[in-house]
């Protein structure tokens, strides 16, 4: 029995964190410093715990829950994402002080839910875990101080999310009807045999819709710009990084169910991928608000990740895992700059970046590298990620898709360079004071930048891990 619970340690640790924040939420007097340091410490330990558990393997809860390298790698990413987002919370001005413990509580439950999501191999568990993470986010979005846009964003998120889960439940019922089981282990044996029947393919697609909502893939992307803009900066950072990573993981699990033999599914994914990339990139060009721009950029990146997934080969899945990690790091770096530059917690216009290279050279440099990474310029991790994804698709012979993706990457370069131009070449209308950048922030920035460059140049170790993790899916 003890053995079983060791497998569950990262989740149990998250549960413990949730309990602590719940206790803090119950205390009468708000104390942001205490909350922040508690969160920082516990999230830091969380990363260590997740790393320590990376080699565990086994199944629990009547085979509903599988701990393997695939799930553990994603748990490490989630723990890291959570920790880094907490690092950004030094000045949590976007949220009222008395709600800080709740803010951390929801972040923790969301992380917990997503950890369970990446480990679940049973449809019902997947569904409830997904709902738990969505509910936490539904509440985090309108938690922002001051009302107006955020209420609209919250409602929109909730509505689109509710529709997506309804569609997904419907799909689950089809999948269950076709395969007579909710366990992925059994589905993976049955489904490839019946994937030609309309019920199976419709069911699988509808299930994917629920996850596409989380990833903001084309038909379910409506919420992204408004939610990114409407939520507090830290919350947006979390939605843009950790929740995307979890979505990539679960989409891979579900797509792997098809066994790679369905042409319909591939066609559908190709269409969605192209639509997401193109739409995201084209609309991003006209954005004035930094967070909206990042939202559209995230829609297009969802398209790139799908390329890796739809290759449905071990290389494809490995490249998607690597891309998810790269995206996590680059996006967090962008949001680090967003949070630090608008330290009063307001939305950041791109024009407000003007003169950043003089106000905070380090941040400007980090922003430039992160944005170049998102655009896919070497030697950053973003280039390596894109390269791997495209290579996996080429291996399968999707030449047209890769060409379209490359054209898209070129388009995206335009608006990414606009951001860099704002930070480096434009001068602010009035002279602004230097931005105070604390030592921990400097350390964090340098660490992120180093990670981006080092893993961009020498990705072999991470790639090995991603390959080993992807093998678990096949």
């Amino acid at each position, binding site marked *: 029995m003890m053995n079983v619970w060791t497998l569950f340690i990262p989740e149990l640790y998250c549960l413990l964190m949730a309990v602590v924040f719940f206790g803090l939420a119950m205390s009468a007097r708000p104390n942001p410093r205490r909350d922040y340091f508690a969160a920082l410490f516990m999230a830091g330990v969380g990363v260590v715990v997740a790393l320590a558990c990376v080699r565990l393997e086994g199944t629990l809860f009547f085979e509903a829950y599988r701990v393997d390298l695939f799930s553990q790698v994603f748990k490490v990413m989630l723990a890291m994402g959570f920790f880094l987002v907490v690092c950004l919370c030094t000045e949590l001005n976007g949220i009222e002080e008395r709600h800080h413990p709740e803010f951390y509580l929801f972040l923790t439950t969301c992380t917990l839910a997503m950890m369970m999501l990446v480990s679940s191999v049973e449809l019902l568990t997947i569904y409830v875990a997904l709902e738990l993470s969505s509910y936490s986010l539904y509440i985090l979005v309108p938690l922002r101080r001051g009302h107006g846009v955020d209420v609209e964003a919250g409602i929109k998120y909730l509505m689109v999310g509710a529709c997506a889960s309804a569609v997904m439940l419907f799909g689950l019922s089809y999948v269950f009807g076709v395969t*007579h089981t909710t366990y992925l282990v059994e589905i993976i044996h049955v489904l490839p045999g019946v994937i030609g029947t309309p019920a199976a393919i419709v069911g699988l697609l509808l299930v994917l819709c629920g996850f596409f909502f989380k990833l903001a893939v084309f038909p379910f992307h409506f919420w992204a710009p408004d939610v990114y803009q409407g939520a507090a900066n830290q919350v947006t950072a979390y939605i843009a990084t950790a929740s995307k990573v979890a979505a990539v993981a679960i989409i891979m699990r579900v797509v792997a169910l098809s066994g790679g033999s369905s042409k319909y599914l591939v066609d559908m994914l190709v269409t969605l991928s192209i639509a997401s990339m193109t739409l995201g990139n084209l609309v991003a060009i006209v954005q004035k608000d930094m967070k909206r721009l990042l939202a559209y950029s995230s829609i297009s990146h969802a398209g790139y990740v799908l390329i890796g997934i739809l290759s449905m080969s071990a290389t494809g899945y490995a490249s998607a895992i690597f891309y998810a990690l790269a995206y996590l790091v680059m996006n967090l770096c962008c949001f680090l700059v967003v949070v630090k530059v608008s330290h009063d917690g307001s939305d950041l216009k791109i024009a407000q970046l003007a003169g950043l290279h003089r106000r905070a050279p380090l941040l400007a440099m980090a922003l430039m590298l992160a944005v170049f990474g998102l655009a896919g310029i070497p030697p950053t991790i973003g280039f390596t990620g894109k390269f791997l994804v495209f290579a996996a698709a080429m291996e399968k012979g999707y030449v047209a898709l890769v060409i379209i993706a490359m054209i898209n990457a070129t388009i995206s370069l335009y608006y990414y360079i606009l951001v860099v131009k704002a930070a480096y070449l434009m001068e602010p209308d009035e002279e602004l004071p230097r931005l105070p950048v604390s030592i921990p922030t400097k350390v964090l920035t340098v660490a992120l930048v180093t990670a981006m460059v080092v893993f961009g140049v020498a990705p072999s170790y991470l790639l090995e891990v991603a390959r080993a993790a992807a093998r678990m899916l096949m």
Partner: protein
Amino acid sequence: MQPILDGLTLSPWEPGLFSLAIYGLMVLGLVSLLLFFASWLGEKKSNPEKLRPYESGIIPTGSARLRYPVPFFLVAIFFLIFDVEAAYIFSWAISYDSLGWAGWLQISFFIFVLLLGLLYIWKKGGLEWGPTSKQD
């Protein structure tokens, strides 16, 4: 394709299930019969005095469509959430003996988490009613 017969979950269907449906139909029939007689045999003369809503003998003023205060709505949500909780507890309660201590622990944890929730809304004033909630 085969029906999902697990042995563990499903037992043969039996028509005894229909007893509730028949009972329901009987109730429906009786109620409609009573309503029909009431409208058929009753007097059908109406005047404004008769049609006015009865409010303990006081003549009503204003519209009946008042906006409900929010606390009512909050209570409705809390009721819904605890109702869903009750559904799980029912499922446990009808088979508590065969589930044994493991089941007891599971449902205890479940109830404990929901108790925490109750404690939270209590402490944060979600159950406050009337003037106190307005001061907040």
